[in-house]
């Protein structure tokens, strides 16, 4: 697998949280680990940071923690896509 930057991993976590909004309960940690392909310990740290930055919202459902993307998270993701495309124009990834 190609090397992923921290920014790219964060983008994938937010992307997964956004895609998993259909049932309205948010994404579980197990789902995020599988989809974003990040080890549990590292994901825990990143989720804590994203929640404290207001990009993700934490909630409880059926005794488990779920994560939903916030409005700021959506805005961040939109900026991320645009600037990722901009950096890609220079042959770089953010």
């Amino acid at each position, binding site marked *: 697998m190609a090397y992923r*930057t921290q*920014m790219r991993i964060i983008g994938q976590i937010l992307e997964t949280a956004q895609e998993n909004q259909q049932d309205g309960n948010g994404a579980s940690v197990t789902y995020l680990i599988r989809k974003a392909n990040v080890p549990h310990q590292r994901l825990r740290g990143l989720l804590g940071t994203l929640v404290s930055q207001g990009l993700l919202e934490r909630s409880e459902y059926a005794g488990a923690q779920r994560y939903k993307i916030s409005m700021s998270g959506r805005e961040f993701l939109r900026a*991320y896509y*645009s*600037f990722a*495309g901009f950096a*890609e*124009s220079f042959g*770089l990834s953010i």
Partner: protein
Amino acid sequence: MEFPLEIALNIAGFLVGLAIGLMSLAGYRNTGSPTLLRLSIAFLSISAGFFVIWAAYVADALVLGTGGPAGWVVTLGAGAQAAGYFFIAFSHSIKSFLPRSAHFRGVVPLPLLLTSAVQLEHVFRSLSFIFLAYGAIETALSCIENKSRGAAWVAAGLALLALGEFLGWYSFVFPGSLLYAASMSCKIAGLAALFVPVSRVPLGLARLGR
């Protein structure tokens, strides 16, 4: 013919460098990506380099009247541009370029101290050519890999700037030939090509200070 071409090139370089630098800076402020920070340093440095040379020409034409810009100012501008091109080229592999040992890193700038100011300008221009050629090749490879149209524009822009530097050398050997005008035209076309990807980013995202 030299004065209008130099003024056109340096104004274009200043504006394009500033636009890409500010866009990258906005990207860094929005996402915190170190890649965009390096890109913003690169283009703001290039922009400053073009501005310094433009200012030298204008100051000479309006105030000093010595018949040409001061050599040390042109060297300073060329140095700033070379530093910017360094950041573009080695954003691709910036971690592996410099030697790991601190002792070796310490001697890297030494050769620059062994040259005179005039030679220094040529050293900077030679380095710019190498960085631009390297950046163009790396960006072209990325363009082939990702099939990105924006990368094609940037690769073409960097290649045209490199060609402009190359033709600029020959214009020293054959002064008064068309090579000088060709070199300047290549550089201006290269700057225009570099601007294309920036024009595609929505301006609403380029807000600073978020």
